[in-house]
């Protein structure tokens, strides 16, 4: 069942002359982990904002086509209603933080939803535990590092317990291990709570490990789409697109050009290791036999 559908969707801000999104067609199944990649300025953030109705309801502009979220026609709905289905986290952690403490920040959403105080407390503590910030309830934003603020932003989206979690570059401020943690957290949520994940990300190493599908957005339109395995192993197809493939894939590509690797290229570290070991052992066997 498709929980998100874009049908030939076009969008232009009132103030701009160019269309930002051009004929976007996209279907996302419930429970899927979709990664959205593409150069900056290609419309990824705009695409995200279509999912909770900020576009078209809060931004003046011209719209064509349809977006359906959780069966609701976005044009007919409004942002608060869509927020019951979609939790969103944006790029810049500093600008997102509107409260004066971590606790205040995370309870803001549930408060707006009108949940009971017990429910709010339960969710807040859970969300902060998930991102590892449960000891920092009273900290003010100026006391937090960029990475910590980013975790709080993730928690603020999680706490809405949405069916669809949209994350716009959620790891930009985090160090490599932090990035990995976010992906694994999000993946667990998808498994345990059947959340659909839409994540805008450049980090292909982690995307390769966790995402189900990847789409490439360029100049407002989806130019490539496929399962993570298919998408990331298409080295030739992605050559001039600006997508940085995982190093192991690029390495495997060189081996494939020498005929040493057959079939789909490995996209994860573990996969690559296994394939290399296999090649070495096959080579050894052949050497022994001959």
């Amino acid at each position, binding site marked *: 069942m498709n929980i998100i559908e874009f049908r030939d969707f076009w969008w232009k801000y009132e103030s701009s002359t160019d269309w930002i999104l051009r004929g976007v067609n996209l279907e996302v199944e419930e429970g899927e982990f979709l990664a959205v990649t593409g150069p900056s300025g290609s419309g990824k953030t705009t695409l995200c904002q279509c999912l909770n109705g900020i576009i078209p309801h809060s931004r003046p502009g011209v719209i064509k086509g349809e977006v359906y979220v959780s069966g609701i026609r976005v044009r007919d709905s409004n942002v608060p209603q869509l927020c019951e289905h979609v939790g969103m986290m944006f790029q810049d952690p500093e600008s997102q933080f509107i409260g004066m403490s971590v606790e205040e920040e995370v309870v803001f959403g549930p408060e707006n939803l009108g949940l009971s105080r017990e429910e709010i407390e339960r969710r807040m503590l859970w969300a902060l535990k998930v991102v590892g910030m449960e000891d920092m309830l009273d900290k003010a934003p100026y006391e937090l590092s960029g990475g910590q603020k980013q975790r709080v932003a993730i928690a603020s989206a999680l706490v809405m317990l949405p069916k669809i979690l949209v994350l716009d570059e959620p790891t930009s401020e985090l*160090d490599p*291990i932090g990035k990995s943690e976010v992906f694994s957290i999000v993946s667990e949520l998808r498994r345990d709570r059947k959340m659909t994940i839409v994540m805008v990300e450049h980090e292909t190493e982690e995307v390769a490990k966790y995402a189900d599908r990847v789409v490439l957005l360029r100049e407002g339109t989806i130019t490539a789409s496929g399962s993570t395995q298919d998408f990331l192993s298409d080295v030739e197809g992605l050559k001039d697109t600006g997508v940085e493939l995982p*190093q*192991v894939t690029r390495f495997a590509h060189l081996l494939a050009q020498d005929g040493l690797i057959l079939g789909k290229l490995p996209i994860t*570290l573990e996969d690559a*290791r296994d394939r*290399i070991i296999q090649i*070495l052992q096959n080579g050894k066997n052949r050497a022994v036999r001959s």
Partner: protein
Amino acid sequence: MKSSAPPIIKVEGLSHTYPDGTDALEGVNLEIKRGEFIGVIGQNGSGKTTLVKHFNGLLKPTKGTVLVDSVDTREKTIAYLSTKVGYVFQNPDHQISQETTEAELAFGPRNLGLSPAEIDHRVKEALRSVGIEHLAARHPLLTSKAERQMIAIASILTMKPEVIIVDEPTTGQDKKQSRQTMKMLADLNAAGHTVIIITHDMSLAAEYTMRVIVFHKGKIILDGAPKSVFRETEILRESGLRPPQITRLTQMLQPFGFSPDVTSVPEMYDEFKRVYGRS
């Protein structure tokens, strides 16, 4: 290399405590030689930005000394030091204040009080070396994010500093733009500039830098060539860091004869051929 020349930057026993009491740096010792290309790595709050701000005098040491070109930074103004050490901030939007790119590039030299002829000459030179001549008359805010980054770097180049520091040179850029930026920095390094980049991207540091300095909680915990730094996986992990993916692959394949010192894809390819050819 010019190993006998005095270091362009020398840091001795540097500690820095912010006015609100946080200790950002503790007893840091460091020497940077002319012509090095250095990557400074560490988590947010590890002290890397604090350190680098001492190089152009934006911060002065609470304890210890910082010598830039053998001059104590405490004795000089930021304006003076900006002619020795150029600092390109992470967000180019924080400095764009003129209506054309040309004027933006001229901003620094104008503040230095140089002659119009000299300013003009420097602006043209910078536009050329960064490859943005076509943007000369354009309003900087009407350019793409990557172009703005180039403008920011060019506007520091017009100050003609010997040392160039770039904070996160490739954030928000795609592969092509990143390569462009890094190639430009590599060219500047080849032309004699000392280049320091602050980054999270381990593979970037591996590919372009000759020396990596890792910060953790205000102290330098690792300092050396990328290959030797990436071997210290345990220490790196404590700082939330890990070697580039290709290095981790080769480390996993060590029992099969792979060298742990691979830090780029072409190197891995060569290493594989070596191991495969042997078996």
